[in-house]
């Protein structure tokens, strides 16, 4: 069980770790008997763009989903620096979980826009109901974000009227509207037709250039190499290797990583 204690950070001595936007300590997640995240620790400093690689089933999605409690982790600590939020082993209340979620914007592989709501409605609901923004404030924020992702003209469209790439850019705008400390991307382009991938990657790249803190699960190796300052490679729920992108891609020390990279090279064009 994971417990949340908002006061813990205040009582902590002010240490070198104050720049850490996200700190995960010894995270564990089991599905029945199957342990999927096996004591994983990870720190993201403010402005870090960390790409998470790994073969299918290595636990990448589960890791992201544990961070915002879409899957409640079994053990571990989750620290979100800026807002002084901590989660650690023990029972975690819904209020604490929601405080955590406000700080972690999530972008799903399948976009998950609400089908019965227009683009604008998708973006403004959470800022209005969770952050307490007035409707005009939320709409203003939404319009600015729509400009940013290049879809201002789609504000009254329903998701089903948009291409996958457009839906994903709206989903990114929806996450940004909460002004989270950290953005989590779970294979944001894997469900897209190849010709639509570029537009979405462009938006994510622009966010990286703004200095946002992001964790990106992706199979776009070129993109990961260009956009991130750190690569983390997962294998069976543990970090197999991590490091700066150039070192990771040019001389990985783990044979598993070498094998993974060579197997991915075929689809390595972008």
């Amino acid at each position, binding site marked *: 069980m994971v417990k949340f204690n908002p006061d813990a950070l205040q009582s902590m001595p002010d240490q070198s770790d104050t720049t850490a936007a996200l700190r995960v300590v010894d995270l564990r997640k089991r599905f029945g008997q199957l342990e999927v995240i096996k004591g994983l620790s990870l720190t993201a400093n403010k402005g870090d763009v960390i790409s998470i690689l790994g073969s299918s089933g290595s636990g990448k999605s589960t890791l992201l989903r544990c961070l*915002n409690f*879409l899957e409640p982790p079994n053990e571990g600590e989750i620290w979100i620096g800026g807002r002084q939020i901590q989660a650690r082993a023990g029972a975690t209340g*819904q209020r604490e979980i*929601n*405080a955590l*979620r*406000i700080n*972690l*914007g*999530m972008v*799903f592989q*399948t976009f*998950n*826009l*609400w*089908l*019965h*709501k*227009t683009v604008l409605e998708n973006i403004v*609901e*959470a800022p209005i*109901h*969770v952050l307490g923004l007035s409707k005009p404030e939320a709409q203003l924020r939404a319009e600015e974000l729509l400009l940013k992702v290049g879809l201002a003209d789609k504000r009254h469209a*329903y*998701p*089903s*009227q948009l291409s996958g790439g457009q839906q994903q850019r709206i989903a990114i705008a*929806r*996450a940004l509207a*909460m002004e989270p400390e950290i953005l989590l991307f779970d294979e944001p382009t894997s469900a897209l037709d190849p010709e639509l991938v570029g537009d979405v990657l462009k938006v994510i790249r622009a966010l990286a250039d703004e200095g946002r803190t992001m964790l990106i699960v992706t199979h776009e190796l070129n993109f990961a190499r260009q956009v991130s300052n750190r690569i983390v490679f997962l294998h069976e729920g543990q970090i197999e290797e991590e490091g700066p992108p150039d070192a990771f891609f040019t001389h990985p020390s783990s044979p598993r990583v070498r094998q993974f990279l060579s197997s991915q090279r075929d689809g390595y064009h972008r």
Partner: protein
Amino acid sequence: MTLLQGFGDQIIAGAITTLQVALTSLVLGIAVGLCGAMAKVSGIGALRWLADGYTTIVRGIPELLIILILFFGGTVALSALFGRYVEVDAFAAGVFALTIVFGAYATEVFRAALLAVPRSQIEAAHALALSRALTFRLVILPQMWRYALPGLGNLWLTLLKDTALISVVGLEDLMRKASVAAGATHDPLTFYLIAAALYLTFTSVSLVGLALLEQRAGRGVRISE
């Protein structure tokens, strides 16, 4: 009007009562059905057990019997409570019985609709820190509505027609007024045909309204299908 032989006002009053009973039972029954469905999908064993018992019993007994049992059971219970003979109001008894019946079937319709809402739609709400209550109101309810409407429409037609059963316990509804007129005028066919025409009018209008509602509920969804 010679055709109605002076019973026109009575028939109209009966028709209004029928609509009142049906609409009241609809609103209350939807509330019961929503609660029943949430109980069924809740992880709480006692609630699920209760809801399962409710729908199993009600769906396994003829509606007419349920109405009679609730009416006479209500009379016995209230009389015992007040220590004297209490006659149960036919309108209240009718609404109560039809709500119980409608609620049981609606529970099943809503349960299926709840489960039909894709998990990913709900996760998106959770990831944005929307509370369970807000997720239900903003995402689950409007989406399950779309899945529930066709089933609810059928239940509504059944409910409208089941109001005729309440006349057995003395409700002055369309059915009863028609049969009184039929007896008094010795012209049963005319009055039963008039009643049938009125029921048919109500159900036809309902079907049109339902089609409009389904169209509205399908906004944003049908285009992709």
